[in-house]
């Protein structure tokens, strides 16, 4: 059975609950210090936080749906027409 050397301060289970707030820098200073201390001595929690950050950063690179060219052309024509009408209501 795998075992884990006990890291200092808060237990791992408590750290992982705060993983996102830690990554997003939303924790109070005292909590951040506590987490950093734990991470310094716990490779498993470092792996966990690293994976959470990797998921976040990978999601940023997921393909975003693009507007089809035909739709873009149609909308730009409408925009131009509306601007003309506004300038010259007659």
């Amino acid at each position, binding site marked *: *059975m*795998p*075992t*884990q*050397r*006990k*890291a200092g301060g808060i*237990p*791992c*289970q408590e750290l*992982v*609950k705060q*993983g*996102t*707030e830690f*990554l*997003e820098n*939303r924790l109070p200073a005292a909590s951040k210090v506590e987490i*950093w201390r734990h*991470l*310094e*001595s*716990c*490779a*498993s*929690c*470092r*792996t*966990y*936080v*690293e*994976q*959470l*950050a*990797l*998921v*976040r*950063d*990978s*999601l*940023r*690179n*997921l393909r*975003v*749906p693009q*507007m*089809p060219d035909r*739709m*873009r052309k*149609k*909308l*730009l024509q*409408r*925009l*131009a027409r*509306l*601007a*003309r009408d*506004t300038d010259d*209501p007659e």
Partner: protein
Amino acid sequence: MNAHATTYEESLGHVEHASREPAPARASGMTKNDSQLIARLRQGDERAFEALVKQNHGALIRMALRHVADRDAAEEVVQDTWIAVIDGIGRFEGRSSLQSWIFAILIHKAKDRGVRESRHVTFSALESHDDEGEEGVDPARFHASGELAGHWALPPQPWNEQTPERLLASRQALEALSKAVDELPPGLRDVLVLKDVEGLESQDICERLAITDNNLYVRLHRARERVRQAVETSLLGMGHRDVRNAGFATLMSIAQSVSRKPCPPNEKRAESRARSW
């Protein structure tokens, strides 16, 4: 939350004005960038419109998909939304941010379309989402008692793919990532997509989804953890279902089959990684 929520009438572009003069932009809900963009749009500036599309089109499609049957229907709803934006920009009063206004239009149109398709999805999924209960890493992965209580019994294994580029280059991981996002409950998926995929500001997301800042981060963490688990499962070579469904015995056998390193203090390594977070 923005106290100046977009009204139903304004969101539909139905607010009437006595003259054809563009409505004055109120500062309350808009950023300076919004004001400039609106002024350019009113002049028919194509580049301003392109910028707005680039910033929002993907998120609009994803949001529409929550209410309508398929991608084609979502694209039609989004196209109608853009038309309403173009037609209504001269009357937009700026009581909310420009993005919130656009998304309010989308939601009204998508719900209407969803009702007609008899596939209306209400916000009940969001409302019924339990933000208070415990959810995250399976408690069975931690020691339940003894000196190591609360510490990892089944720790995450390091992945070979340690950069977003490498992770996304792995077809297996990419599929797991995409599928995990698609399979999230709407209340989690919306938050994850808007924050991590679309990169919106927290305040905009809270306003758009009518949730508190605290709710947002609770859901964001749960969503990221589910996606992380799905990728972990995929990279460990298990079947499709996520780790939480695998059962503790299966997880233990996998963990025992993976070579594990001890857990030495390694401050330099931690500092090096922290810089990349």
